[in-house]
């Protein structure tokens, strides 16, 4: 397995195969960002390619201050935002709200009433429900959820990619999780009745 520096050196030396390797390594991370921020499928295809062309063009400016994947994700995020701005689509940034101010009844009791076996049986169903619920979240929440829970990036890395302060990343993630938990418990309760 080649290091970031070795890969970059190879690409700068003219090795396009090495660039293909970089694309392969970072594709899933870029997909997380592109799929969450760009609603149109055709645009996604263009944006994904534009991202890597930009990466290629600016690779000589990469100073190894962060992981190569983080740097590429940063380019991906900014490219998506630029595309949205060009098409005048709004990037939804939710308003600041105090923690615990959800306004809805917290349904932990219902969750507690469910035993482990039941939950396992409902795992698949819940997965699908959750996927649908994630899709209803603001794009920025979806992106953060994908980066944190699926790509397993740290708050610091996510902050670097999105340009948001680390505290804001934490706060958005907290609210997204709470919203998902509350909605899932609510749906679950309705189905049980």
């Amino acid at each position: 397995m080649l290091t970031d520096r070795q890969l970059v050196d190879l690409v700068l030396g003219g090795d396009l195969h090495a660039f293909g390797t970089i694309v392969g390594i970072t594709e899933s991370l870029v997909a997380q960002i592109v799929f969450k921020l760009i609603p149109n499928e055709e645009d996604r295809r263009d944006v994904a390619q534009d991202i890597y062309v930009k990466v290629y063009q600016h690779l000589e400016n990469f100073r190894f201050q962060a992981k190569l994947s983080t740097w590429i994700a940063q380019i991906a995020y900014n490219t998506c935002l630029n595309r949205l701005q060009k098409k005048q689509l709004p990037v939804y940034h939710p308003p600041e709200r105090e923690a615990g101010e959800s306004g809805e009844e917290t349904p932990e009791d219902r969750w507690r009433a469910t035993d482990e076996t039941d939950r396992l049986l409902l795992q698949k169903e819940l997965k699908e429900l959750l996927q649908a619920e994630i899709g209803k979240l603001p794009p920025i929440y979806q992106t953060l959820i994908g980066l944190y829970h699926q790509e397993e990036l740290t708050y610091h890395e996510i902050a670097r990619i999105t340009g948001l302060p680390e505290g804001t990343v934490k706060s958005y993630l907290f609210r997204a999780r709470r919203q998902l938990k509350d909605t899932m418990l609510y749906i679950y309760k309705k189905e049980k009745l």
Partner: protein
Amino acid sequence: MSGTHPSEEILQQYVLDRAACPAEAIHHIGACPECQATIAAYGALGELLSSQPAPEFDFDLAAAVTVRVRDVRTRHQAVARVRERKGGAVGMALVVALFAGVPAWLFRKSAYFVFTDMSAAFYWVLLAAAGIVVGFFLLRLHKKYQDVINLINK
């Protein structure tokens, strides 16, 4: 059970990184079934989130990008060649100016006497020849420029 319930933020923190939670909160959670239920819910949610299917592009991104990058590289090389040629032409013009201009400037007073004995016809021939050479040179330059532009736009 001790005091009021910890905030949901702390409960989430407990699920993600228990060690980063305040000792008081850990103590409370250990004895509070309500908080334990919330933690169980967040735990299950975390598992579900991690196991969500990752989005994937429905085309070979690496292949598509490689084609575009190859194209970009060809254009860059073409542009570099144009710059190189431009640099060469400028250099050549400077050399010509130096070799022709300096003596012309130094002997500018005697040059008048050299040309006064020539006929008007000779001046016209000289002017026409110079015009042909310059025209030919410009035509060649334009053709080269067109070639590069065609290469870039290909």
